[in-house]
């Protein structure tokens, strides 16, 4: 139609658009009407005939065809249907008809209805195959396993041939029919009605909610070419749990695999508040009504009492227990063996624990496939350390067994198999009833009981033979098994009279396992005669009349029994004398012999018989050349050596004893073959530090000769005591000490010397500590001559306490020390000398001094006691008495003619010519001898001439310019003034020169030659006049202030006493703290020499 429409539409595009559009629409409507008309005509034509033929089949044998009736046909209208299928067959039918299935291919079907005839072409391909709706025969539930069982009939008998059937089953849950699962199930139609079963296990307990089941099918017939369709769903059948009003939780006591999921529900009429798995909260899934469920994922292994799942309502809790565990592991290390060839015991290891106990625990069944017999494993009621083992009774004439051990629990099963030849797996029981019987002294029979039927096999038994103080011996014995379980063997090569301990274990051949050792059986073998005579020695008594015979008890191996007695006999060439029997344990006998050469014989006897005799000669050959030697052992023994002597035909004998014991002394002896030249003497009796005497005898011509005598120690030790020493004599410088020997018992070694220490020290202070530390104040004397018993210590100090220490030493070490304090005597001569010498020296010094003083008395006098001029002789110094006493302001001197005393003027060397008017030659030379030392040109003696001085003061410029010589009076105290201010000296002097000048006239230093003047001033410190007020200052002459204080003209006392050599001590002035320095200095004596 569209094509037509498009074809019609194409030309219209050529016309004017508007007009053309209207025309086109019109044509389109016209054509539509035309078409509808035609269709209506056709339809009305159809409706007047049967039409819409459809055929379906549900069994492939009959087609159920139907068609639409022509309009106007009533319900009961009859049709004639004819099918052209080779045989023209027609049926008179009503509306629908069932026709047998037609063969493949087109078939013409004619339906006549009255006058109208409809023809159809019918092919199998046009036929639909819709199976009949299946019907559920039965739906049942196993609530314990939450399994639904469905049963239905496939009605296969109606189908002509075999066909595959697909059944689709749907499971719905809860009242709102939620689809839980849709599954298919395939079967085959076999021409018969077959009832099918199908089961489904729900993940939710069936009690929790109503479950519905429906089914439909689809028959896949390969030969049918038509359209195949699913059948309709069957009617739903449901399963629900008829609960009482009680609340219940499902599933109950469920056993599940660890790690799996499970749904637990609570069927209740109460409101569930929460759900707990153990102590863990779990979200609720609401089901119908108040029922709830929880889903547990990946559950973990339960404890033995299971995992509790509880649902809590308001005032109660309901729950269930789930047991999560594992299926049984494959039994491991399955092993089957027999103890006695009567019963087989199979053991195994269960492997991984299943976490299931009680009735859920693994059960084991052991089955033997050849015999078909099985045994079940039963657990003990009280659980212990389970040993998994099963006993299986052996079958006669069957050696090979094929065992299968099956393990089973609610979660599964496993098995392990073992093929075993039991004759090769014999693990015998422990031998019992071990008995021993004598055969002779070296052989016994050993019997034991070994339960089992070993008649057909061989046994390998092992006998352990233990002897006291000996290594155990194992003997293997192969024997044929017996039926009565009693076994007997002979054990030989034993020692007589020896305690043996026997025990036995057995295995079979071929070897599989040893049995456990039997209990030990102790047995003493019978006695035999002693195998040899006792080891003998003899000693002559100290008086030489009796011979003492010694012998050693025989060892157990030699005695072969209990020694009861000894027979001692002596024989000579003439006779044999038998002495009385000596009972054990006495091991010596004393015989009185009248001569020396007897042969002594000793025989040991036990209950069986006597030993071979042991003989020894009584003769002792003297030895004159005998020295006592020393020897030291090795701690546990002592080595003795000697030279080979071919004359010694029989054994050497070394006997020894403790040296502290009296003779005859015998501790033990040892016999050494004659070809030996050394032996080590060892004994448990040896003790370190004990002195022993060793005697080496050689055997010659049936007599013994003492060859060597040795004293020795097996080990030397340090002495236990110090030597006891005393002081024999004491002098002022020496001490004589004497000491005693240390007893041998306390010496404990060979004495090697003494160490003598001495030092100064009092009893209470000196401890003589650290003698070996090499203290320098300790003197040590090592006395290696052990025969020395005295020592004189010399070069000591008199009347001094000395600490003396003495100790002895051996090679074993130093002994203890003994100390003593001794005070040397006083040295009287020295004391006298010590007094006399200082006295003599003092006398000599006094005499010499006196002589010298006497001889130099003049000089001393001059130096220390010079004559002082008497001022009274000086008229110039005669003050008017009234003036002196009345006014202190008037201090001018009245220049009277006077005869001056000596005035010495020292003139410094100057280039400037001296002023003639100041040159006064003193008529008196006070020290002629000294004056010769002074150069004439420098030494000017001037007389006192005040006017001239005043002129010089008034004209200082001329003084400077001309450098005229001047007279300067320097008092004794201010002799250092020029040093303080040398440049101001002239000015000061000028000021100072205003007053009284003393008799001692010092040279005037030129201003040009200051430095030279300084020196001279130092040297010219002599007597100074007392009236110089400047210098009467209180300051020290050393003080700089003394030079500065010249501005203050201070009168400090009477100017009348000018003839004094001393200052008149002014009254103490508090403001002049330096007055202390103003005193007289002794050094001035020596500076004021006449020649200065």
């Amino acid at each position, binding site marked *: 139609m569209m094509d037509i429409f498009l074809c019609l539409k194409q030309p219209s595009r050529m016309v004017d658009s508007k007009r053309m559009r209207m025309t086109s629409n019109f044509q389109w409507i016209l054509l539509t009407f035309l078409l509808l008309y035609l269709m209506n005509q056709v339809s009305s034509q159809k409706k007047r005939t049967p039409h819409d033929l459809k055929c379906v089949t549900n069994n492939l044998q009959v087609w159920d065809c139907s068609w639409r009736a022509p309009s106007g046909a009533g319900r009961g209208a009859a049709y004639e249907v004819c099918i052209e299928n080779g045989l023209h067959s027609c049926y008179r039918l009503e509306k629908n008809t069932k026709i047998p299935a037609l063969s493949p291919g087109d078939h013409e079907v004619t339906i006549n209805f009255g006058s109208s005839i409809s023809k159809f072409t019918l092919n199998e391909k046009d036929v639909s195959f819709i199976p009949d709706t299946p019907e559920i025969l039965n739906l049942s539930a196993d609530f314990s396993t939450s399994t639904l069982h469905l049963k239905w009939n496939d009605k296969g008998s109606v189908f002509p041939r075999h066909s595959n059937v697909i059944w689709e089953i749907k499971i719905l849950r809860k009242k709102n029919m939620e689809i839980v699962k849709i599954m298919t199930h395939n079967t085959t139609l076999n021409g018969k009605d077959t009832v099918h079963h199908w089961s489904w296990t729900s993940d939710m307990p069936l009690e929790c909610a109503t479950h519905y089941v429906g089914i439909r099918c689809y028959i896949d017939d390969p030969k049918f070419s038509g359209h195949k369709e699913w059948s309709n769903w069957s009617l739903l059948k449901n399963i629900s749990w008829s609960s009482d009003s009680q609340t219940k939780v499902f599933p109950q006591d469920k056993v599940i695999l660890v790690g799996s999921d499970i749904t637990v529900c609570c069927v209740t009429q109460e409101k569930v508040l929460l759900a707990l798995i153990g102590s863990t909260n779990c979200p609720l899934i609401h089901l119908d009504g108040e029922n709830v469920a929880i889903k547990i994922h990946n559950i973990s292994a339960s404890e033995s009492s299971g995992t509790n799942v509880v649902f*809590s309502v308001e005032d109660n*809790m309901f729950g269930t227990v789930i047991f999560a565990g594992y299926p049984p592991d494959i039994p491991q290390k399955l092993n089957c063996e027999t103890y006695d060839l009567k019963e087989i015991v199979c053991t195994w290891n269960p492997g991984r624990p299943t976490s299931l106990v009680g009735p859920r625990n693994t059960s084991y069944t052991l089955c033997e496939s050849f015999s078909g017999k099985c045994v079940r494993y039963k657990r003990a009621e009280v*659980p212990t350390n389970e040993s998994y083992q099963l006993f299986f009774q052996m079958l006669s004439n069957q050696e090979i067994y094929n065992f299968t051990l099956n393990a089973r629990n609610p979660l599964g099963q496993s098995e392990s198999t073992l093929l075993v030849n039991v004759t090769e797996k014999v693990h015998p029981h422990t031998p019992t009833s071990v008995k021993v019987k004598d055969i002779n002294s070296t052989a016994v029979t050993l019997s034991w009981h070994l339960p089992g039927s070993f008649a057909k096999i061989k046994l390998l038994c092992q006998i352990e033979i233990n002897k006291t103080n000996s290594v155990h011996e194992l003997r293997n014995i192969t024997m044929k098994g017996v039926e009565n379980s009693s076994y007997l063997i002979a054990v030989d090569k034993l020692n007589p009279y020896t305690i043996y301990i026997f025990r036995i274990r057995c295995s079979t051949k071929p070897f599989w396992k040893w049995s456990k050792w039997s209990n030990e059986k102790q047995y003493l073998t019978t006695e035999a005669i002693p195998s040899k005579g006792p080891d003998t020695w003899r000693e002559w008594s100290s008086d030489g009349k009796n011979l003492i015979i010694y012998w050693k008890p025989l060892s157990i191996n030699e005695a072969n029994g209990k020694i009861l007695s000894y027979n001692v006999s002596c024989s000579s060439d003439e006779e044999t004398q038998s002495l009385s029997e000596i009972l054990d344990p006495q091991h010596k006998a004393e015989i009185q012999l009248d001569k020396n050469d007897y042969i002594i014989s000793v025989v040991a006897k036990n209950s069986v018989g006597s030993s071979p005799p042991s003989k020894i000669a009584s003769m002792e050959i003297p030895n004159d050349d005998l020295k006592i030697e020393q020897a030291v052992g090795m701690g546990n023994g002592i080595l003795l050596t000697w030279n080979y002597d071919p004359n010694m035909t029989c054994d050497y004998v070394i006997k020894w004893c403790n040296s502290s014991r009296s003779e005859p002394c015998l501790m033990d002896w040892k016999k050494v073959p004659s070809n030996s030249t050394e032996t080590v003497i060892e004994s448990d009796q040896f003790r370190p530090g004990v002195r022993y005497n060793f005697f080496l005898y050689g055997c010659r011509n049936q007599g013994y000769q003492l060859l060597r005598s040795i004293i020795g120690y097996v080990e030397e030790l340090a002495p236990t005591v110090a030597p006891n020493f005393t002081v024999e004599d004491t002098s002022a410088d020496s001490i004589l000490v004497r000491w005693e020997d240390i007893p041998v018992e306390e010496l404990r070694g060979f004495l090697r010397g003494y160490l003598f220490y001495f030092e100064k020290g009092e009893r209470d202070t000196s401890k003589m500590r650290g003698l070996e530390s090499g203290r320098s104040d300790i003197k040590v004397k090592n006395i290696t001559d052990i025969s020395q018993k005295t020592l004189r210590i010399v070069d000591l100090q008199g009347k001094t306490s000395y600490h003396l220490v003495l100790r002895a030493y051996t090679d074993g070490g130093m002994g203890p020390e003994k100390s003593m304090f001794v005070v040397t005597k006083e040295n009287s001569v020295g004391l006298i000398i010590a007094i006399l010498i200082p006295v003599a020296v003092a006398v000599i010094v006094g005499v010499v001094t006196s002589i010298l003083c006497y001889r130099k008395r003049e000089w001393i006098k001059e130096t220390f006691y010079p004559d002082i001029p008497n001022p009274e002789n000086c008229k110039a110094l005669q003050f008017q008495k009234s003036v002196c006493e009345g006014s202190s302001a008037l201090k001018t001197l009245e220049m009277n003619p006077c005869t001056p005393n000596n005035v010495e003027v020292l003139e410094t060397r100057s280039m400037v010519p001296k002023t003639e008017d100041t040159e006064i030659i003193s008529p008196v030379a006070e020290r002629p001898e000294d004056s010769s030392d002074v150069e004439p040109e420098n030494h000017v003696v001037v007389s006192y001439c005040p006017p001239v001085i005043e002129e010089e003061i008034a004209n200082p410029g001329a003084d400077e310019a001309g450098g005229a010589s001047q007279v300067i009076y320097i008092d004794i105290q201010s002799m250092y003034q020029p040093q303080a201010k040398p440049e101001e000296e002239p000015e000061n002097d000028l000021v100072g020169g205003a007053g009284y000048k003393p008799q001692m006239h010092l040279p005037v230093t030129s201003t040009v030659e200051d430095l030279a003047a300084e020196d001279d001033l130092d040297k010219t410190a002599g007597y100074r006049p007392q009236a110089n007020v400047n210098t009467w200052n209180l300051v020290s002459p050393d003080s700089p202030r003394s030079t500065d204080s010249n501005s203050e003209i201070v009168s400090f006392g009477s100017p009348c006493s000018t003839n004094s050599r001393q200052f008149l001590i002014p009254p103490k002035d508090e403001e002049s703290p330096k007055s202390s320095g103003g005193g007289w200095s002794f050094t001035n004596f020596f500076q004021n020499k006449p020649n200065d």
Partner: protein
Amino acid sequence: MKVLAAGVVPLLLVLHWKHGAGSPIPITPVNATCATRHPCHSNLMNQIRNQLLQLNSSANALFILYYTAQGEPFPNNLDKLCSPNVTDFPPFHANGTEKARLVELYRIIAYLGASLGNITRDQKVLNPNALSLHSKLNATVDVMRGLLSNVLCRLCSKYHVAHVDVAYGPDTSGKDVFQKKKLGCQLLGKYKQVIAVVAQAF
């Protein structure tokens, strides 16, 4: 021997219960003869008191041991899982006469003995490794057996009561594991509560 006793005694008690279940509790008429197999102990009441004190002193420990062995959430939900609301538990009146108290004590001990027998049996299956619990249960059952004998002796010798009808608790053999656990816990909770009152009354 203990195992045998633990199995046989509950069985006998259960058989005994079948005869008297649901019936009133008659006491032997006064004129009925009453004979004990062995002479009663001279100081019977003291023994009864001591046995009650012994039971009372161990009841709490047994209770704790029991609910601990049942696993979570028992220890933390004792009020809901172990509440002592045991139906048909014989009553006890502390202010009754000695005879009445002894009769009631007999019924209680018989009830408890049977129930503890059930619990012991169940726990041996359920908790085979809880040896201390088994031991304590067995010891308690043993003391109860002795107490029951003493009480009967006392009733017989003094009050000439030769037979007392008793009632027993529900048999748990057919119940699921959780029910067994819960009933056992409830019974032991009740036992702990009752034995304190009974011990005080004597």
